[in-house]
């Protein structure tokens, strides 16, 4: 029985080293082919007519003019007369034509009549949300909140929230679908689920799951929004069939991408918190609301963030607001950024009322964070050192004399990130070449590189000695990339498959080295006897002993009979340093630091990139990103990239990342990292702004307008958002 574990620190030749991503050259040279870049023989271009109205019933559709246009190969009604449309941008008709301009002309030639219905698209002002749009989606009551508030020394009330934002993947959603024959389909999608969405397409097209072949080498961003085949994926297959099975490519236009293909739910809350004079937190009460589109979305199980189950007195109620807006999709650490903001902002306001340094306040209440209290304590102290907290922090509002006020803020976050199910085939060929196959995907997180590192480390080969094959649903099934589960999943299955394949090789090679298989080791491009390394064969010589028969071993995560190689559950801390111009309301990032626990770090270089990326995304949603909906027309006012701002290279300030590694962390194996560091920036930056200007800016993004509005209310309550 093979023993599966990660090599000891002193035995690692690749794991833990700063390694450049292996697909870097393909990406910098423009050679990497994304789905958006693929042109199939005879390919047609598909376009979709979308509803201009947020809430309407389709009265009639006339596609006759479009059908007659030269170059138009298919016109298909997706939602016919009588259908009630619930958001602007919903799909009505799909067309396929010989080129994009013709497809666009065809869409414009379609006449649709709508019967408009009343809509609701904004929910930030809860007083304007009609009764029939509200649904209580969760209530919880523990301890004795009334008594706790009565007995508290300090009670603080506030309103906090963040508007809906969109994913805005640079490669928009879409796919190319073609029929290889009557029953078999080939799809090139842009997806986070190489092994999972083929089945969804098969179901939509009414063919057996095995008849869908899916291929995707590169994806231009997902962030949680690309888990499903989506209606346009299935319709793409249907219009391809109408057009004699020719390949049809539908990539969403930027406008549609922002309106219907990505949305992080909004969340707002009226919060009341209480503490004793010494800073001990005693009670929490919140009434929260938010929208996820027409369907509800509960955040109640996450408030107050991290501390909920340890806090003795708590009372929460959440109301889901049904709006006529594009439906929510998972967005990097679903629910966490919103609930983190609401919680950490309320606690920081409480610390300010107590006239306590929030760092001391969090340390004082550290046991409320539960099982990871010690991790958070260490991380808070490390982050404080990195940002020179004790030197730079000042009591709230004492941010300097001039119009530019400087402030510091902090936040803590958590996430799971345990391994998903993953299978992997590793093949050692008699010529010494090695192939690793998994039906996984690399979202830009470095998955390809991690797989290569793990396999090459196991075989003692350089990275170039292993060929990584991913992005095909005919490879062994690996989970979708969501929940930061990929690194744990693929590294576990790859390690197990590699160890098994290597043991099989040892069995073949042992006689030639006059040794027993278990006495052999692989390293430095050789197979050798552990106790006598000079008794060795080169990797090529060893593999030649296989004759004509390659070795293939399958690794599985989870494995039924061995301990897991990866684990779940991390904690992280972020601290932000900002400057706010109280005359213009402009917030400028000076610095943000992140201290993160993520178990064994396989590639610190790409891991760091993920944390930087998460913090940059955090800066963007804290200061710039907002889906702006127009009450009158019910449509999105900024479905583009000049008014839906993501922030640029000059907006981010300085950033530093520190991983908690070594003893106590390494032995946990890798834990997913993509999501946790996106959680805290909103809270840390909001707290820093409050510290700088002396008043809370209640809602993200903290645009100059909102900063100035908050300053105008300075000294008063912000309870009327």
């Amino acid at each position: 029985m093979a023993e599966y574990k990660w090599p000891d620190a002193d035995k690692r030749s690749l794991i833990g080293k700063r390694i450049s991503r292996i697909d870097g050259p393909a990406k910098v040279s423009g050679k990497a082919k994304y789905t958006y870049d693929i042109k199939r023989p005879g390919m047609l271009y598909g376009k979709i007519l979308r509803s201009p109205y947020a809430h309407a019933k389709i009265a009639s559709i006339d596609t006759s003019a479009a059908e007659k246009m030269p170059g138009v190969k298919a016109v298909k009604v997706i939602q016919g007369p009588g259908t009630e449309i619930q958001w602007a941008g919903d799909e009505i008709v799909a067309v396929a034509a010989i080129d994009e301009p013709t497809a666009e002309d065809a869409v414009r030639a379609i006449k649709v009549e709508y019967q408009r219905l009343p809509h609701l698209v904004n929910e930030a002002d809860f007083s304007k949300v009609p009764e029939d749009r509200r649904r209580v989606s969760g209530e919880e009551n523990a301890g004795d909140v009334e008594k706790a508030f009565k007995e508290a020394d300090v009670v603080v009330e506030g309103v906090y929230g963040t508007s809906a934002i969109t994913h805005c993947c640079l490669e928009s959603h879409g796919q190319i679908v073609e029929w290889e024959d009557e029953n078999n389909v080939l799809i090139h999608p842009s997806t986070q689920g190489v092994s999972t969405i083929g089945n969804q397409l098969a179901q939509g097209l009414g063919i057996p799951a095995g008849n869908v072949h899916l291929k995707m080498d590169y994806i231009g961003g997902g962030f949680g929004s690309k888990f499903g085949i989506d209606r346009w994926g299935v319709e793409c297959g249907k219009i391809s069939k109408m057009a004699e099975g020719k390949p049809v490519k539908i990539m969403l236009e930027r406008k549609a991408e922002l309106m219907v293909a990505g949305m992080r739910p909004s969340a707002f809350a009226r919060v009341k918190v209480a503490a004793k004079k010494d800073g001990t937190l005693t009670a929490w009460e919140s009434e929260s609301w938010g929208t996820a589109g027409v369907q509800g979305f509960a955040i109640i199980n996450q408030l107050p963030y991290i501390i909920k189950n340890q806090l003795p007195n708590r009372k929460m109620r959440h109301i889901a607001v049904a709006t006529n807006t594009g439906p929510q999709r998972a967005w990097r650490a679903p629910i966490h950024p919103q609930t983190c903001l609401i919680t950490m902002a309320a606690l920081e306001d409480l610390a300010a009322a107590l006239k306590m340094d929030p760092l001391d306040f969090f340390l004082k209440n550290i046991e409320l964070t539960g099982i990871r209290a010690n991790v958070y304590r260490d991380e808070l102290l490390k982050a404080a050192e990195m940002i020179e907290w004790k030197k730079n922090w000042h009591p709230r509002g004492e941010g300097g004399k001039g119009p530019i006020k400087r402030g510091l803020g902090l936040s803590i976050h958590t996430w799971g990130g345990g391994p998903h199910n993953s299978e992997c085939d590793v093949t050692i060929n008699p010529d010494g070449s090695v192939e690793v196959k998994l039906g996984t995907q690399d979202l830009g997180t470095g998955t390809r590189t991690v797989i290569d590192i793990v396999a090459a480390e196991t075989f003692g080969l350089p990275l170039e000695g292993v060929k990584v094959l991913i992005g095909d649903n005919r490879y062994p099934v690996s989970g979708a990339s969501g929940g930061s589960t990929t690194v744990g999943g693929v590294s576990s299955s790859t390690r197990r498959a590699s160890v098994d394949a290597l043991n099989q090789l040892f069995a073949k090679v042992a006689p030639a080295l006059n040794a027993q298989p278990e006495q052999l080791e692989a390293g430095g491009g050789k197979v050798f006897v552990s106790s006598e390394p000079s008794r060795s064969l080169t990797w090529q010589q060893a593999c030649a002993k296989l004759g004509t028969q390659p070795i293939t071993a399958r690794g599985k995560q989870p494995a039924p009979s061995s301990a897991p190689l990866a684990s779940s559950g991390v904690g992280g801390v972020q601290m932000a340093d900002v400057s706010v111009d109280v005359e213009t309301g402009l917030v400028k990032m000076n610095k943000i630091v992140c201290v993160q626990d993520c178990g064994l770090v396989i590639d610190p270089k790409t891991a760091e990139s993920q944390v930087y990326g998460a913090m940059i995304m955090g800066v963007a949603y804290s200061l710039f990103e907002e889906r702006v909906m127009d009450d009158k027309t019910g449509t999105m006012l900024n479905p583009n990239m000049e008014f839906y701002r993501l922030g640029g290279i000059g907006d981010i300030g300085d950033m530093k990342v520190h991983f908690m590694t070594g003893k106590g962390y390494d032995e946990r194996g890798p834990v997913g990292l993509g999501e946790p560091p996106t959680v805290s920036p909103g809270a840390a930056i909001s707290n820093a702004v409050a510290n700088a200007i002396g008043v809370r800016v209640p809602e993200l993004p903290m645009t100059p307008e909102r900063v100035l509005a908050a300053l105008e209310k300075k000294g008063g309550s912000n309870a009327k958002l």
Partner: protein
Amino acid sequence: MSSSDDRPDTPNSGVSRRNFLKGTGLVLSVPLVAGVRVVDVAGAEVKVYGPGKIPITLEINGAKRTTSVEPRVTLLDTLRNELDLTGAKRVCDRGTCGACTVIVNGKPVYSCSMLAVEAQGKKITTVEGLEQNGKLHPVQQAFIDNDAQQCGFCTPGFVVACKAFLDKYPNPTPEQVAKGLGGNTCRCGTYMGIKAAVAQAAQNLKGGRRNG
């Protein structure tokens, strides 16, 4: 192909840029011919292209490439759909994000905002043209070394923009970087890597080989 003038006024027929350009071309009511036609407009000679596909020749990465496109088609779409040069990406499609950046006559240009017919007679360099003799350009190498990429979709545009930027500012200050590369957007958040890559490339380009 239907004329833009008799288009029904449905709620969906918002004026798109391409359509607007197409419309302005039709104002002159030129007879349907292929290729360029010169007409007299208020005493000035004006080139009129289309409607319909017309043959064009573009000088890309040092080679002449010929294809046929409608006059309303952008340089970006021509590179991508007709010439299989897909390094430049279509993202915002309206001159905001820089993913489509190419170099035209030495200057970085959003190829989504230039018509293919306009680009004739100009020297165009795309990301595919930066590599020379099988060796990556120092900017490309710096992007790899500093992990200035994640999903990589903005990367080719950023690489081209950095190359053009460093041609103009060989010793850039952080302020110049913020401004000079502020016309490119990354969603994964690779700006820290890009800052480091710019510094490395600036260093390596000094006195060294210059491509493109």
